[in-house]
């Protein structure tokens, strides 16, 4: 009997663990180590942040689902990996620290034959002083990265709307809280949902709403933007994003690295090197992501963290990390199998793998401060990668170590994305987009880097319906209800 240990129970880890458990059956063991007791459909946190959904609607307990799937679930966080074992055992293992109520802080080891690291990101609030405490519930700004954060964001938003109703003009600032953030899409959704709710509350004329982000142009989204075919034109996402901001009277500040937050003030540096301060009454700023800080040790107990992980804490996989300057970047730099080069029984999936480089063009201010979005690898790509990695591990277990590894390069896969711009059965809107491939391939598609037959976007009520249906569909799938394998990632 082989044991697969999956670190993390988010989109990628949950997908990998549940498919592996299904494919391996009871002949082998699947263990999930995740510090959370509940699964969270993160894309709907936006609606929790504006009071249109409750925390309970976007989360569910993991234990019954894993019990049903025959998965050994440990509510704990991974601390370190010993891929060669240690002085007392040759078997590789991970060291975990329980977070389960009643066992908090207990340390244990879990041996593995295969390991999938799908730990997701550490929300690195500490990168920007004042952005938030360790829980993200900062004094000065809010976040929608977790359901708890989103609930807190709504509490603060309610206070601001009450002030506007009382005749007090309010300034709202939403965007990214650091020059190296990703997830601009979440902030994009939140700003337009906030605008929609303020309009519904009848106080839109009392709000000054502003976007602040590290993108060098609106509509970059960490993917270098995209071109869509509309009305016979191939049009940049910049034009569409700017149009939506102008239509909804939302001003913008781009190319901004927020380097300090104080009460009602965000201090920033722009790409031209200038410094400024943006005042606010309510602010939601997304933190940058980092790896969760896993350590690694060899058999002798020496620290080999730098062998397994990039400096940002994400795990090195089969990517080309020596591509060098932007001019040399290729689609083939991106990983295909997500197997670590140093230990063939370790894989990384979802946000946990280290991208070879940015997707957007790298930028920095004259002061040397890098200000550019980092690559998004959430949602559909995270699910597809998790499934492909699980498939590879299952084949390695059942067919032997020479089994063919499954591939899921972000330079060869597309993504469907629905960005809400306001919730409502008949007055809601969302931008429904597909992009193919996620990472542009300028050798295959020399013009825009992408296939414009499969890259499109439009805003409307249909997009909102799709986002709402996907909310229920993916929670249904994650609960492993009948037919769950038929729902694509």
């Amino acid at each position, binding site marked *: 009997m082989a044991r697969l240990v999956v670190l993390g129970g988010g989109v990628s880890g949950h997908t990998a663990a549940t498919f592996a458990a299904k494919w391996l059956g009871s002949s082998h063991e699947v263990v999930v180590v995740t510090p959370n007791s509940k699964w969270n459909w993160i894309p709907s946190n936006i609606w929790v942040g504006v009071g249109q959904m409750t925390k309970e609607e976007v989360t569910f307990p993991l234990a019954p689902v894993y019990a049903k799937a025959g998965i050994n679930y440990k509510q704990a966080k991974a601390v370190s990996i010993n891929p060669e074992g240690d002085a007392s055992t040759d078997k590789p293992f991970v060291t975990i620290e329980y977070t389960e109520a009643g066992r908090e802080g207990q340390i244990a080891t879990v041996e593995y034959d295969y390991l999938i690291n799908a730990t997701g990101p550490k929300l690195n609030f500490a990168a920007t002083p004042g952005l938030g405490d360790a829980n993200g519930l900062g004094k000065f700004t809010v976040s929608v990265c977790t359901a708890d954060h989103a609930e807190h964001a709504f509490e603060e938003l309610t206070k601001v709307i009450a002030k506007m109703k009382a005749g007090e003009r309010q300034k709202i600032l939403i965007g990214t809280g650091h020059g190296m953030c990703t997830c601009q899409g979440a902030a994009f959704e939140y700003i337009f949902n906030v605008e929609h709710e303020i309009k519904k509350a009848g106080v839109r004329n009392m709000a000054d709403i502003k976007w602040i982000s590290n993108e060098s142009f609106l509509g970059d989204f960490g993917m270098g933007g995209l071109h869509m075919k509309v009305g016979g034109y191939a049009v940049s996402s910049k*034009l569409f994003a*700017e*149009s939506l*901001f*102008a*239509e909804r*009277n939302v*001003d*913008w500040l781009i190319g901004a690295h927020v380097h300090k937050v104080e009460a009602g003030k965000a201090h920033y540096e722009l790409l031209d090197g200038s410094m400024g301060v943006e005042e606010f009454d309510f602010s939601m700023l997304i933190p940058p992501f980092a790896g969760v800080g896993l350590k690694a040790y060899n058999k002798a107990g020496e620290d080999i963290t730098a062998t397994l992980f990039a400096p940002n804490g994400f795990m090195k996989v089969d990517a080309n990390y020596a591509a060098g300057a932007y001019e040399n970047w290729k689609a083939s730099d991106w990983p295909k199998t997500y197997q670590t080069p140093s230990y063939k029984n370790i894989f990384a999936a979802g946000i946990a793998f280290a991208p070879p480089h940015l997707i957007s063009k790298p930028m920095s201010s004259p002061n040397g401060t890098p200000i550019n979005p980092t690559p998004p690898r959430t949602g*559909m790509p995270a699910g*597809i990668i998790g*499934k492909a990695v699980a498939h590879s591990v299952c084949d390695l277990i059942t067919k032997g170590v020479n089994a063919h590894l499954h591939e899921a390069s972000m330079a060869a*896969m*597309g*993504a*469907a994305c629905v960005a809400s711009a306001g919730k409502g059965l*008949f*007055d809601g*809107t969302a931008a*429904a987009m*597909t992009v*193919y491939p996620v990472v542009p391939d300028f050798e295959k598609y020399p013009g825009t880097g992408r296939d414009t037959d*499969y890259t*499109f976007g*439009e*805003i*409307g*009520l*249909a*997009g909102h*319906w*799709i986002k709402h249906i996907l909310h229920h569909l993916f929670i249904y799938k994650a609960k492993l209800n009948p037919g769950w394998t038929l729902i*694509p*990632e």
Partner: protein
Amino acid sequence: MKEEEVNFAKNERFQLTMIPGTVAKSMRTCVVWQFIRFLVINIKMLVVVSKSH
């Protein structure tokens, strides 16, 4: 002033963008038209999903 022209005056940067007019905006929430778009978008998304697995 037409509805779509109002915001052009609010910000210098808005003047360099495109703002949808009344018809374009009403089509975004027209239930019949959006139901058609719902079907079309779903088909397009399924094609991209199938190419990605």
